[in-house]
């Protein structure tokens, strides 16, 4: 028969100081763990939500991001003529895009890399999620640009009506746009031809993006088959736009998760030592109580359970506190460099139920590991020794 739950519960309340230390230690680990995982989740959500399921992107073979890619003008034109490219209002839904990164001061100090995208006037035929929220679109052929909302929040002294000097040219920001919370919101857009000439990138683009006439995966299959046979296309590779962003998200999210895992492991060891210490102190202070319970007829297993329960309760309290504190970060706007594109990506911390569930399991595991030895020590104490007065 088990020792009543109330015994374990009240024993925690009685030892407020040491219980608070153990709970605090576990809560700290939970905060770090949840924060890092919510950072990865927020980043993954933004990048994975980027791109359209109907689009296909073509980049240089082996390139993981547009920045590492080069697609020659004649290659781009060959692709644009293919029947797998859909038509919108009588024109082909295909854009040749140039991308470069520039360093700009960000809010709160330091610099960050900004993705500058040179897009043709029909860019929104393909980037359907892009919508103007303030101002107007840039006029083709003029030194005008539009800024993504996520980037507008992160950069210093850059906003609607202001200017931005890139290279030898000064660009007027005439509009702000949103893109459904995707990575495009962390970009500065301007006229593609102008960007090409300003940076002497004639004849080379970074990517070709087109809307598939049928399904995007089918278009990728057909184009890949062509790439294998047509010498004009052999330097490029095709993938769905979704796949392109998912690959980027995976790289970064995995990196954060691994770093988070290492940090959490190290901190967990500290929290386990703290919990073990608290529980050993509890056992040592309550030796005679334990002796009395055993003398009364409670089995060593029942005593073990009571102390394990106490340790798990401490862990559950730590989990609740840690999760509660972590939820304060949920939705907080932040940004960091996407290592796939080497440029700033704005996103929000995303505390998901799955992350909280993992954090609770982690805490209970810490409680279990921390409590197991002291509980054994309590349960298999010799009754006569336990009852002896100090």
């Amino acid at each position, binding site marked *: 028969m088990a020792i009543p739950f*109330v015994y374990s519960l009240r024993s925690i309340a009685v030892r407020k100081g040491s219980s608070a230390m153990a709970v605090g230690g576990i809560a700290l680990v939970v905060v770090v763990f949840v924060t890092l995982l919510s950072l990865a989740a927020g980043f993954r959500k933004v990048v994975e939500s980027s791109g359209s399921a109907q689009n296909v992107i073509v980049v240089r073979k082996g390139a993981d991001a547009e920045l590492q890619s080069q697609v020659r003008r004649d290659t781009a034109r060959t692709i644009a003529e293919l029947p797998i490219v859909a038509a919108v209002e009588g024109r082909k839904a295909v854009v040749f895009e140039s991308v470069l990164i520039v360093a700009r001061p960000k809010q709160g100090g330091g610099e960050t890399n900004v993705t500058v995208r040179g897009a043709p006037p029909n860019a929104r035929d393909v980037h359907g999620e892009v919508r103007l929220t303030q101002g107007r679109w840039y006029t083709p052929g003029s030194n005008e640009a539009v800024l993504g909302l996520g980037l507008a929040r992160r950069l210093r002294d850059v906003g609607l009506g202001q200017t931005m000097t890139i290279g030898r040219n000064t660009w007027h920001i005439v509009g702000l746009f949103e893109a459904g919370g995707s990575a495009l919101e962390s970009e500065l857009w301007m006229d593609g031809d102008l960007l090409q000439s300003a940076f002497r990138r004639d004849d080379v683009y970074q990517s070709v993006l087109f809307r598939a006439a049928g399904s995007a995966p089918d278009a990728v299959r057909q184009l890949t088959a062509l790439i294998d046979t047509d010498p004009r296309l052999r330097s490029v590779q095709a993938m769905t736009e979704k796949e392109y962003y998912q690959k980027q998200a995976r790289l970064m999210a995995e990196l954060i998760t691994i770093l988070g895992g290492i940090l959490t492991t190290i901190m967990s060891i500290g929290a386990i030592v703290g919990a073990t210490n608290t529980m050993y102190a509890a056992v040592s202070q309550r030796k005679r109580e334990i*002796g*009395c319970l055993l003398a*009364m007829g409670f089995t060593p297993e029942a005593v073990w359970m009571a102390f394990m329960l106490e340790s798990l309760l401490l862990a559950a309290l730590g989990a609740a506190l840690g999760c509660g504190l972590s939820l304060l970060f949920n939705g907080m706007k932040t940004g960091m460099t996407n290592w796939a594109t080497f440029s700033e990506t704005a996103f929000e911390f995303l505390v998901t139920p799955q992350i909280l569930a993992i954090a609770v399991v982690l805490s209970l595991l810490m409680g279990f590991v921390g409590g197991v030895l002291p509980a054994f020590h309590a349960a298999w104490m010799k*009754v*006569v020794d336990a*009852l002896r007065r100090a």
Partner: protein
Amino acid sequence: MSEPIIELRHVSKVYHKGSADIHPLDDLSLTIDRGDFVALMGPSGSGKTTLLNLLGGLDTPTAGEVLVCGQDLAGLSSRELARWRCDHVSYIFQAYNLLPVLTAYQNVELPLTLLPLSRRERREHVVQALEIVGLAERMYHRPDELSGGQEQRVAIARALACDPELLLADEPTGDLDAHSAQEIMALLIALNRDYGKTIIVVTHDPKVARAAHRELHLEKGVLARDVDLRHEPT
């Protein structure tokens, strides 16, 4: 003819401390009858507490046989011993050993949770035990809200709750003032007289010993004196 509740046959206990052997009990044989009230006396280190621990199945003898309530304790595993203790024996400690986080009611209820009783039956036993010790009105108080004498009365109620045949008390008045000690002894006498409980009290106090029917005097692990106090002039 009285029926024995305890039989010890050539019981010895040896502890090893460093390279030395300590013999708290040395070839001890004795019988205690059901319903008896026995005072166990002797100087410190004479083996009183060791004997009490053997009788309660908290410790095992190095040699000899210990039969309590018809059971040879030598053959029982620790789990069986726990079950046996719960059914037959209760302890009263010098330091009361109440669980400080539980109320008087919950402390008394604790051993009852080991028995197959309903909540209502448990409540009846707890209230009855607390009424016997005169503390029913303080059942929802925690130990730190009670005096030493009251704590020991709660500890006695806890010992009574399971209705054990044998009560083992290790210096139950040792931590109490004279008045409280007198109350506790009166209670133990009443439990023996009115409820027929067999009581064995370890004590240094001759006044406590005088309340008993029989005084066993241990010295260096052997029975030095066995006095039947019922036939002694007071």
